[in-house]
């Protein structure tokens, strides 16, 4: 059996700041890393690998300079990372990303299970799983909390809006995992040493995937995107000091002024 885990090289959105005067987003210098949800994807994939003895590769779209960011992922138990060198600098719309991932999965075929996150930390648009399912024509077991190999297929516990649902599907299949359902394992020094010997293979979209940049660009459906930050307008009054009683009184006064508290009538 062969497993592929899709891992997003994501922006740490908690580090994105907004200029309060201009609403401009300050994305320069925001760290990029393997996403938190994606670490869960890797954990889920490693567990499935352990349960089945399967091979496990990760596919990621990232700049070639990100090679070293995958050490942890390899230490967790992944055999190999395929890094698709991103010609779009992280700016391609999801429809294009899905085509790249599809091409890489097809090149690695036979792939029995593809695992991905239900969404990414930064984009959080829930698109990749459903779109890949359409393109690959494989069943999608979405929002998985638990994944069990069963009767040559998979049984998955789905975390839906109002219910938990158990579903099964034969292989090949696609599984999107729920957030935080598979907290990533801690790795040891031994794991890290072993990981050093594992390959991170960089694939070019033209050379390895046989796609043309021009074709990909013409498949884009969005002509133009502009971003602005959301500015919070809060009073941002900060009370500090040693006298807790005085601070409590100041807080109460502030809440009274704001019409949240009122004094004894």
């Amino acid at each position: 059996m062969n497993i592929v885990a899709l891992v997003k090289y994501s922006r740490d959105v908690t580090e994105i700041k907004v200029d309060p005067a201009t609403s401009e987003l300050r994305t320069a210098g925001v760290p990029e890393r393997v996403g938190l949800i994606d670490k869960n994807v890797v954990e889920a994939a490693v567990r499935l690998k352990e349960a089945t003895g399967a091979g496990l590769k990760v596919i990621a779209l990232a700049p070639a300079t990100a090679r070293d960011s995958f050490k942890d992922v390899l230490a967790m138990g992944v055999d190999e990372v395929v890094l698709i060198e991103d010609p779009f600098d992280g700016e391609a719309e999801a429809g294009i990303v899905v085509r790249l991932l599809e091409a890489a999965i097809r090149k690695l075929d036979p792939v029995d299970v593809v695992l991905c996150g239900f969404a990414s930390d930064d984009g959080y648009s829930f698109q990749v799983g459903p779109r890949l399912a359409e393109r690959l024509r494989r069943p999608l077991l979405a929002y998985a909390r638990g994944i069990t190999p069963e009767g040559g297929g998979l049984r998955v516990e789905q975390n839906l809006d109002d219910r938990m649902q158990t579903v099964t599907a034969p292989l090949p299949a696609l599984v999107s995992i729920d957030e935080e359902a598979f907290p990533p394992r801690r790795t040891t020094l031994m794991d890290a040493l072993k990981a050093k010997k594992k390959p991170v293979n960089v694939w070019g979209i033209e050379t390895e995937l046989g796609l043309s940049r021009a074709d990909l660009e013409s498949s884009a459906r969005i002509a133009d995107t502009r971003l602005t930050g959301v500015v919070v307008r809060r009073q941002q009054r900060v009370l500090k000091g040693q006298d807790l009683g005085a601070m409590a009184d100041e807080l109460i006064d502030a809440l009274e002024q704001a019409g949240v508290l009122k004094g004894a009538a």
Partner: protein
Amino acid sequence: MGDKPTILIWSEHPALARELVGAARQALGPGGDVALLAPTGVAVDIRSVDVVFTTESADESPEAWAALLAAAVSQTEPALVLVGATKLGLQVAPRLAERIGAGYAAWATGFTLEAGTGAVAARCSLYSGGALAYHQFKPGRVVLTAAPGALTAPADAPSPERIARQSTLTAEVDGIAPTVIGVRPKATSAARLEEAHAVIDIGQGVKAEEDLALIESVAALLDGQLACTRPLSSDRDWFPEWLGLSGKKVAPELSLLIGVSGAIQHIVGVRDSRVIAAVNNDENAAIFAQADVGVVADLYAFLPVLVERIKARGMRPAWQ
């Protein structure tokens, strides 16, 4: 398409479907048509839409809804398809976009549809709600998802009396959908958080479950309901649900955040509160930029003093 554009709508939630109908009506003005794929077993007010598709299928899988929507698209040729952003809708909409070769964006908070050209532009929430993306789509069909309350149409949006054309849709689902073998309802908390006047929202700064007694003493004085950040629910299991991006969203009179760092993914769940107050012992915590009033203090030292002062001064919530 052309100069009388159509917007096609679907959500499995009747209230959300109605909201989307209102927003579509407003965007179209009197000129265009609103078509609705009605949720199974739900009566629709057929005067608010121009075309209603119903289905007799009992299959409520994302694959089935995507197939039905694709069939509705080929009958109505809409410029835009609006889908409710629930966990189900967020599976159905990207599938549909892929299937019909449409443009797609999630979490719309507004959109425009140009009458002459059918060109669609959308404003969408991005980076966990920290940013807005304005997308101008290329000519052609577009699919958008919108969360409850995101596309707020005015309550008095004009709804001219129409009599919808009704038809029943069926669609073939190919054999690649998973098989459902069991379903169980989820635990939800008894607290009606959305209706609370005050929300006492705690984070990992609260160390032990015993400490909830202290928090409850504050909540009682402020007539507040307890809520929490995700780790307190998903890691510690103190509450069945949390506030934030992937949790609930509230907009009370007061949110008091205790031992919460202020990560954007949490803040989006409370940022529509009228007043935000915070207690955190780290002066550099992000929460202080998100609050109207913040107290830099150890919560274990500060809260008992706060309780004592509220009582001593005979303060009550303004709504009591």
